[in-house]
């Protein structure tokens, strides 16, 4: 169809072009117009064509009326618009009759065409057989084209009916459509190339949401189609179950499994995959019968009409199943309560819809989980708020505990849930009444729980676990409380713990360990009795020298530690970039920003020694005597330190060892003459020659003994 349409469009376009070119022509030129008229028009056309050039051509005189006098000098082909043909000129004015017959024959032969196979349409048109007659009749009746199959007369008419502007608009529209299409394609290509997982996740979620909405609408409008969709989901599940997808068995999953030990992300990815598999393979189950029975009566009242309708419409599947696809109560109720459904829009599910389905489901599941978690949190919060209640429940059975706690939590959070409740109540006023009564407390939570109703066995199990966990959680705080009560200085003193320990340590240090007084120096006391005054003095001193000593020392130590700590640099300028003045302090944010924190120094030596303050200041004077450059082959100071750890001096060594340690590398004998350096030793030849010559000249005078010496020196 599209192709045909396009062809049509093209056709119309070509016609329009003609129209544009020849604006003066009436569009519908009837066939019965006269020849003269045609000629005139033809001339005009030629004129127009000539004028297109833009040059003013010499215009020949126009023959306005027909004249029979035609001079031979006035012969010109111009004006008539016909070309001169030589044959015409050569021809006699009157043709001879002798050749006429031959000519006629020739012409006839010429004019007669050879028979072509298949037969011409003109020939086909003629109906020969009765069947053909019938067909032609039919065609004529419906005004179908017989010869030209492209356009029906209707179409032709419509084409003719289309105005120029319409055509233009149409063309512009098409153009835009094409441009948009290309844009869209480019965009799709670009998006496909995006590697960001987050982006794709968001896109997927968005799509899923959209699909969900659409599905809802579809369900409202056309339940059967919705059911089909559901079947599709079911089919996808089956496929998933059959396949090995999402079971951590693929190449990717294996690679991740290797990394999972170290990489948290990989582990998460694997778990996600498994979770996905679970979700996909999870059967949308009917709730166990007993529970259904218990709930159905309530459900009848609770469930909005729309749902029931759906159930009636889709007589096959269970309404629960339907709802399970889309259990999000908030979203569900919105369109129902607002009563005015969105306008019926024809919904075409594209092929991509199928892919989106599971994602949508996943999202719904996620939402469920979140809600449930939130609910649990709230209940916990309520527990904290009402510890008494939680304590009381400890005695009762676990089921009761759970329900009560939940009820409490929900009662507490009534305020928060007001809006939701209102929505629910709009559907059924009966519920409102019930809610006022204290008795049906069980129902209220049920109602509120509905969004997270148990749908699968697995979830049932989860719920059970939840209960267990809640059971566990209950006694814990109490235990903690008891613990804290038992030793009240346990937690609050945690910050001071160390200090306290220090104190205790100090006390221990300063108290006696060995109170053994019995020894030989007993007589001293007798002796001391002589000087009672002195004893008394000491007694007084001892009395005043009290426990303050420890506190003072600790204070001193704290001060010393504080003084030795590297200090932070505060670069805030008050009044810079904000109001300044007396009593105005720069904002905390600004102060934080311009505070340069000093690096944490090494731990103090007396960190664990409560009774000691060790000065951490460096002895600069001593440091001046220390080695501060590493000599060559050493790369680390410890290496060099090892070589200088043994003392060399005679104070620490025996005489022999001292001598050996301090022997110089080169030993010169006493009395050995070291001659001054000569130029020849260095390598100069020129000066040495002269020396040699001098020596040679003197050689004769030298005695043998001297010669020997010279030799020695030269060899040296």
């Amino acid at each position, binding site marked *: 169809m599209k192709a045909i349409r396009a062809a049509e469009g093209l056709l119309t376009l070509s016609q329009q072009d003609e129209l544009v070119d020849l604006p003066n022509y009436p569009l519908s030129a009837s066939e019965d117009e006269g020849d003269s008229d045609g000629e005139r028009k033809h001339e005009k056309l030629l004129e127009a064509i000539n004028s297109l050039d833009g040059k003013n051509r010499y215009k020949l005189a126009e023959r306005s009326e027909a004249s029979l006098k035609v001079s031979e000098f006035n012969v010109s082909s111009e004006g008539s618009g016909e070309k001169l043909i030589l044959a015409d000129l050569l021809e006699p004015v009157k043709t001879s009759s002798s050749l006429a017959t031959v000519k006629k024959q020739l012409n006839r032969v010429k004019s007669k065409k050879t028979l072509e196979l298949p037969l011409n349409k003109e020939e086909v048109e003629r109906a020969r057989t009765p069947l053909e007659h019938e067909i032609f009749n039919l065609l004529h009746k419906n005004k179908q084209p017989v010869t030209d199959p492209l356009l029906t007369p209707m179409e032709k008419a419509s084409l003719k009916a289309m105005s120029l502007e319409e055509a233009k608009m149409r063309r512009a529209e098409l153009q835009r459509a094409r441009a948009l299409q290309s844009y869209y394609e480019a965009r799709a290509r670009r998006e496909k190339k995006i590697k960001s997982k987050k982006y794709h996740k968001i896109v997927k979620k968005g799509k899923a949401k959209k699909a969900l909405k659409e599905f809802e609408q579809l369900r409202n409008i056309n339940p059967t189609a919705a059911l089909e969709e559901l079947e599709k989901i079911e089919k996808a599940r089956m496929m998933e179950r059959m396949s090995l997808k999402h079971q951590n068995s693929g190449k990717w999953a294996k690679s991740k499994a290797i990394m999972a030990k170290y990489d948290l992300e990989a582990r998460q990815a694997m778990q996600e995959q498994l979770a996905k598999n679970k979700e996909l393979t999870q059967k949308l189950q009917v709730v166990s019968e007993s529970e259904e029975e218990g709930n159905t009566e309530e459900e009848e009242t609770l469930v909005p009409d729309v749902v029931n309708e759906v159930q009636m419409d889709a007589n096959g599947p269970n309404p629960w199943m339907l709802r399970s696809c889309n259990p999000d109560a908030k979203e569900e109720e919105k369109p129902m309560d607002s009563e005015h459904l969105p306008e019926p829009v024809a919904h075409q599910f594209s092929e991509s819809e199928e892919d989106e389905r599971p994602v949508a489901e996943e999202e719904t599941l996620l939402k469920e989980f979140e809600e449930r978690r939130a609910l649990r949190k709230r209940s916990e919060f309520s527990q904290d708020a009402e510890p008494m209640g939680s304590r009381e429940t400890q005695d009762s059975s676990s089921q009761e505990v759970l329900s009560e706690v939940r009820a409490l939590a929900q009662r507490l959070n009534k305020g928060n849930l007001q809006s939701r409740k209102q929505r629910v109540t709009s559907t059924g006023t009966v519920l409102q009444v019930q809610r006022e009564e204290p008795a049906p407390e069980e129902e209220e939570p049920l109602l509120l729980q509905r969004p997270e109703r148990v749908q699968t066995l697995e979830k049932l199990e989860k719920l059970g676990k939840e209960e267990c966990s809640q059971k566990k959680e209950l006694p814990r705080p109490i235990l903690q409380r008891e613990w804290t009560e038992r030793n009240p200085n346990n937690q609050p003193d945690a910050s001071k713990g160390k200090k306290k320990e220090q104190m205790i340590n100090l006390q221990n240090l300063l108290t006696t360990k060995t109170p053994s007084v019995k020894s030989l120096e007993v007589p*001293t006391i007798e002796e001391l009795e002589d000087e009672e005054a002195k004893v008394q003095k*000491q007694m007084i001193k001892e009395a005043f020298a009290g426990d303050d000593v420890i506190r003072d020392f600790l204070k001193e130590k704290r001060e010393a530690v504080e003084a030795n700590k590297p200090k932070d640099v505060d670069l805030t300028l008050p009044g810079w970039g904000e109001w300044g003045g007396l009593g105005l302090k720069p904002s905390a944010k600004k102060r934080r920003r311009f505070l340069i924190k000093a690096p944490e120094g090494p731990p103090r030596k007396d960190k664990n020694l409560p009774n000691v303050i060790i000065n951490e200041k460096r002895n600069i004077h001593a440091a001046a005597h220390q080695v501060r450059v590493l000599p060559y082959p050493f790369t680390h*100071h410890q290496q060099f330190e090892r070589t200088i750890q043994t003392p060399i001096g005679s104070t620490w060594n025996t005489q022999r060892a001292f001598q050996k340690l301090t022997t110089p590398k080169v030993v010169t004998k006493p009395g050995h003459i070291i001659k001054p350096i000569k130029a020849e030793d260095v390598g100069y030849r020129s000066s040495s020659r002269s020396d040699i010559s001098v020596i040679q000249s003197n050689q004769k005078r030298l005695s043998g003994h001297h010669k020997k010496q010279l030799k020695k020196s030269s060899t040296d």
Partner: protein
Amino acid sequence: METAPRPGRNVPPKKDKLQAKRKKPRRYWEEETAPTSAGASPGPPLKKKRNGEVRLQKPKNTRSSKKSRISKKPQVPKKPRERKKPEPQRSLSGAQDPFPGPAPVPVEVARKFCRIDKSIKLPRSKSKTRSKLEVAEAEEEETSVKAARSELLLAEEPGFLEGEDGEDTAKIRQADIVEAVDIASAAKHFDLNLRQFGPYRLNYSRTGRHLALGGRRGHVAALDWVTKKLMCEINVMEAVQDIRFLHSEVLLAVAQNRWLHIYDNQGIELHCVRRCDRVTRLEFLPYHFLLATASETGFLTYLDVSVGKIVAALNARAGRLSVMAQNPYNAVIHLGHSNGTVSLWSPAVKEPLAKILCHRGGVRAIAVDSTGTYMATSGLDHQLKIFDLRGTFQPLSARTLPQGAGHLAFSQRGLLAAGMGDVINIWAGQGKASSPSLEQAYLTHRLSGHVHGLQFCPFEDVLGVGHSGGITSMLVPGAAEPNFDALESNPYRSQKQRQEWEVKALLEKVPAELICLDPRALAEVDVISLEQEKKERIERLGYDPEAKVPFQPKPKQKGRSSTASLVKRKRKVMDKEHRDQVRQSIEQQQQQQQQKQKQEKAKPKGSRPSALDRFVR
């Protein structure tokens, strides 16, 4: 300062001793003791009441064979002599050397002289560095072996006092000891009755030959206490707080009522140091030639006696300073304060190097042992405590005394004497380097007056006590180091030798600013300024010249040097380095775990874990 005994360098005094040994004079009591010890017969005809065995270090010549009951100190088990060569060399004479090669040295003895701390693991070093380190270690081994071998020359053994079974040595009185020992040793016990000039302070010179005493009421005297030859005796007509010899026995510093005065050995006043006023205690640091004075005004002043300058005057900010001691190991001055703290001072630092809270009440006395390991303090809370000075400053042992000790003194071999009222208690440890155990007193002695000054005499088993009744010289067997370094401090030196030693000592004077808590830290590289200089250099150059150059693959021919392959090669090297790092870290972790496991294993063996353990702090 550390001193390794260096025997046999200065011969003459040794010779004296040896000669004295050679004579071996018979003691009048020797024959009497011999039968008792040999036969152990009941009811020996003894003049002595006690059977306690007494040995002073000096009478080495007493034959131990005669006194079989005297149990000798367990000697260091020496290795059996190994014959290095199975076939002994034959000399020209044809005689065989029965012990060829150098004499073997027991490992334990040699280890004593090793100073390289091999527990520190060095970072990986280049071969060149390694060879240097090896050379250093070889040198150390050689020197330590030589030192250990020369220990043979330390002929003297410390004396001791040992009771019979169940007998308390503390019950042995001085009179008994004096009776038991030889005449020379017995002559070292004496009492000076000087009741006129009040309680006495006393000080022995570094050689242990001379004694200076200063009475509260102005009596100052110096004497060669061995020969009892008086050098000078004056009355300064002023209250004397403390008295101390300077580097030699020639100079004498006396803290008088107002100022610090310096006298020579003839009693002539040389100096009056007015900048040190109201001095209560004096302490002389011999290697730094520093006289440290603690004053009533709360100042600790260091006076360099070699140049006569005050090096530092530190305000302790703790009121009156009346308790002072020096740490002979690192020349740090310990001050005791009334708030129960002991502060450690160096002239180079304005603040105390460390402050230790020792007592609830004020500190009454401090003493530091000669190795600088232990500090004994006594306070107003009647406690006597021994602290570990090696970094932790924690009390090792403590005991309460009926009346707190007013004076404390450590001997060279680690005996602790405490003066409480008119009683002297002396505690001894197990060996030389161990702290004295405060459970059982080694000796006690009652004086005729209250103790005012205590000092062990160096190189003599004598404790000098100054008290209100004069001076008492007690015999304390095993107190002093029996072997002396004649170059260091020679008790028998002549005047000439003393002068020579003085010059050498002055040349070897240690600058005052080198006094710090850990003197071995001076042999370490100043890492902070090293880093600083490195940083500055990097800043100046704009790059780190010592930084490891990143691996640059060599260019290769035949198209193998494509960018991809270069990158690949680089990658390879990087990966390798990374792998090495990971491997190392894993190994470290494993080691740590193993250690932990070992600790855990070691712990529960002693006792079963009980439920009450959780309450243990």
